[in-house]
């Protein structure tokens, strides 16, 4: 089950740290964006996330380290040295998942971009996240 950041019912999936949508098909995260997603099946499932690292933000923060977690279990921790569009995909152990209740997908960002105008803080730009087979 993939979540598109522009789908109308997305707010019902957001647990924390995902910004409201501003007429864009994507959303900003904060330091730990968490979304609830149903895995549908638990065997041979991969966590898939499409996101982007904002160019001007990267200039301020430098390389970012993102940690991807499923139901609190750390799936991977990756350092990104360049801004731009990114795709993350990695198999999830079935014992972390449930086909009965939603699983929590977390994306932790080690450094936040602070907007010079108003001091607002941003993590990464999220387009899609969820489970694929």
């Amino acid at each position, binding site marked *: *089950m993939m979540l598109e950041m522009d789908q109308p019912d997305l707010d019902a999936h957001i647990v924390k740290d995902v910004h409201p949508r501003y007429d864009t098909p994507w959303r900003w995260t904060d330091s730990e964006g968490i979304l609830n997603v*149903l895995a*549908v099946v*638990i065997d041979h499932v991969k966590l898939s996330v499409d996101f982007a690292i904002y160019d001007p933000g990267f200039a301020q923060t430098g390389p970012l380290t993102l940690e991807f977690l499923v139901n609190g279990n750390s799936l991977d921790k990756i350092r990104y040295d360049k801004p731009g569009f990114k795709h993350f995909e990695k198999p999830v152990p*079935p014992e972390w998942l*449930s086909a*009965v*209740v939603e699983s929590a997908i977390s994306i932790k960002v080690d450094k936040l971009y602070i907007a010079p105008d108003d001091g607002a803080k941003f993590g990464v730009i999220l387009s899609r996240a969820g489970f694929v087979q």
Partner: protein
Amino acid sequence: MIKALAPILFGALFTVATAWAMGAILLQRFAGVFYKTEARLLEFVSGSACLSAVVFALCIFKFARPGVFLFVGLASIACVLYTKASRAHTKTFPPIPVLWRWLFIAIFSAFAVYYLFNAMSPEQSPDAVTYHLGVVSQYSRTRGFPLITDNFYASLSEGIELLFLFAFEYGRHSAAALVHFSFWIALPLMILSYARRIGHPAAGVAAALFTALSPVVGMDGSVAYVDVALAAFAFALFYVLQIWDQTRDNRLLVLIGLLAGFAYEVKYTGGVAAIYAVAFIAWKSWRAGERVWKPALIVAVCAFSCMAPWMIKNIIEVQNPVSPFASRLFPSPYVHTAQIEEWSRYLHMYEMTSYRELPLELTVKGMKTSGFIGPLFLLSPLALIALKYREGRQLLLAAAVFGSTYFSNIGARFLIPVLPFIALALALAIEKWRWVLLLLMAGHTVACTPKVFDRYAKASWSVWRVSTPAALRREDPDAYLMRTSSSYPVARMIEKLVPAGEKVFAFGSPAQAYTSRHIVVSWHAGPNQLLEDTLWTPMTTERAPTRILKFQFPERLIRRMRLVQTAWTHEQQWAVAELRVFAEGREITRSPDWQLTANPNPWDVQLAFDNNPVTRWRTWRYAEPGMYIQVDFGKLQPVDSVVVETSGDTNQARLVVQELTQQAGWNAINAPPQESERPVRATLRRAATQELKARGIRYLLIDDSQWGAKDWRLYPNAWGITFIGETRGERLYRIE
């Protein structure tokens, strides 16, 4: 306006006229017994019972058609006119004192007009549009009784609903409400009439107004409910019993039996009427040194002959004469014991935390008792003063009898049958202080005026306001109901979006009286609850079949084996999603020769052998030692292990495997279960909806406030459903 109102008024008046005509024919043989005024009222009430019996017979043979009803009505009325039956009663009461007469006329007329307009308004009261008229509209479509096994409300006795059906054929929902309103008119008039008979007209005026003006009586009596009708039958029975006691005219025994039996037909709680009538006749006969058995038997036989058709209908349809109650005594797949016991527990308390809240809730607030009877009834203990009069003692005895069932459902309307007795006893107790009685009447009138009770009982079930344009059909009923009702738009959405002949599964009950589609409500029957369980299983880990219990033992030859539950559990059912039998590490293929049974709930035992992870056999009762699932292999079968797939919500159950041996009967196999967890690996959601589809249900109605509603909304693909419509927070999905 006239065109729209004509069928409504015709339907109601024609029903009342037919009932009255049948009653006039019945009562003409009692010339000289009744006063003219009371005869008219008793004719209507007893005739209603006769008309209901006729409609029952027509429904059996699927002759419930407007043309047939027209013939029955016209024939009855013609018979009365021809035989002059209505002129059989000539005695008249002495006139009511002028002040009391005009007080009664003025106050009663004002409230009667108000509640008449409510009765004429498009019907939207909850129980009326869900089941009182829900089943009536079904009977109307099928011209009689269809077989209904998925709605236990259809198993309740429906004596008054059959009168509604008579009216419904011409004037639909509002005509039915007006029929019930006719009992609201008749009841206070009977109270007044009885009081006049015993020589207390002033007390009669006060008691009639105390009863009729009570907000819950006005509300109930002006919609298509049945409680005011039950009160009318209870009072009519009391009335005729008192006349019999005075006259010892044994011709009245048949009428007494009819009224007592019909009270049960109106509502199960009216069953006490038959016991009361038989006991009254027997006691009075014994006290007078007369024969006891014969008159008591006549009453009992007449009463039972009224009650029996409903019991027989239920035995044929749902295997339980008093369905949905007594399900332990008459187990059936159609009603689950746990469901009824939980429901009954709720009805004992509603939202209250203690019975200490009851007096104020019942009389003043009405929020937790679905209506209130009025502050005046806080003075009910004063009615005990009436014990010093014979009439007072009789009234209080009747109040005790008809109040004895009240705690089975503490809703204010369940007290309505008691109110006439309390009201008259109270009025008799105070009658000699006329000014006090007048003051109480004035206070009660003011307190029961909508603008006044709006200030102190805001959240109660009462008639707050009446829309005259809607009542007179100056406003289109459809537009009015779309504007004011929450359940009507849902029913219309179903009618529009669901093809004819399709079933809709719903967790709540929409206005079934306004849709011809078959609604399967989750809590209305055992099989429906099973579907609800199936739909909830994919969303709750405790229900999913993740607990595995393995019983391993040295191979042995078994012909019959049982899985037996041995523990007393605390409010927990036992359930088995799948029962598998192994030999040499391989599952033994299930064979059509296997004979499966279970105790309790043998009807669903197949669900533990269907390889479907979303269905399960459940006890549908709290687990008790001795409950079992049994497999008869039909031959000696080598077995070395048994695997039970079950769920977390049955973790209090303790299981053993037993085999049937020739020497020792059922013998426990020494094999303690090894418990393990197995995660659910695939979505159960689609399996659940496919199970519904396999049972003929292709549509789901889900309220946004319903537990789990979010899941259906967010994951339609996982469920295999398509959203097709929404109104008033209720979403309609089609199962693909």
